[in-house]
């Protein structure tokens, strides 16, 4: 049974992650609340597994010409600086507190998603 949950969580996480829709949240929720892992380890696992998944999704998107390279370049460059700061912080903060911050982010995103305005279906 444990294995079924794990497979389900990881698959859903992959689906949402490929769309930039909070896939990481799903896997980390599973890892911490159901598998009982330490918050920092759960975050690390999610970071690692997302890399090959993102490569796979990108391959599809590049083929369909859905990537705006210029926008991605600027955002990613600034993002690298942010990642350095964020990772450093994540090492300083106690895991119990880190878990609370993660919970706060979920609360914020969860509310936004539940009350999101409907998007048009196939506008690309």
């Amino acid at each position, binding site marked *: 049974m444990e294995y079924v949950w794990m497979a389900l969580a990881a698959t859903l996480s992959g689906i949402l992650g490929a769309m930039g*829709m909070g896939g990481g949240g799903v896997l980390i929720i599973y890892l911490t609340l159901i598998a009982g892992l330490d918050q920092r380890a759960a975050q690390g696992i999610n970071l690692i597994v997302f890399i090959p998944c993102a490569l796979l999704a990108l391959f599809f998107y590049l083929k369909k010409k859905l990537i705006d390279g210029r926008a991605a370049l600027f955002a990613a460059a600034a993002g690298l600086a942010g990642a350095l700061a964020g990772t450093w912080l994540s090492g300083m903060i106690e895991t119990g507190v880190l878990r609370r911050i993660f919970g706060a982010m979920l609360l914020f*995103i969860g509310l936004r998603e*539940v009350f999101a305005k409907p998007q048009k279906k196939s506008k690309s």
Partner: protein
Amino acid sequence: MKKFLHAAGGFCAGIANGLLGAGGGMIVVPMLIKSGLPIVKSHATSVAVILPICVLSASLYVRRGSVTLGQALPYLPFMLIGSAIGAWALPKLNRTLLRRIFGGLMLWAAWRMLF
């Protein structure tokens, strides 16, 4: 102005990614939509933004000893299957229902983590 928006959104996504190991996409997608990109392209492009950020954060996590590659391995096959499904479905899908369902899941988890 657009460049500033892209850089600011990217920076915040980087912080979320490094600090919480997730959540970058939830910042980058709305930012890209706001900057004028079509919705499906925004979702797709967000993955290109998060990937390099993720590589940096993940390697720092591993170097620091917060996690090992072996710990991540069991999840990988399922994640890859999911990722292929997600990338295939993105242009076709009505995402509103999906957003509401997972919003609900996140609120449940938030409650568990905060209290």
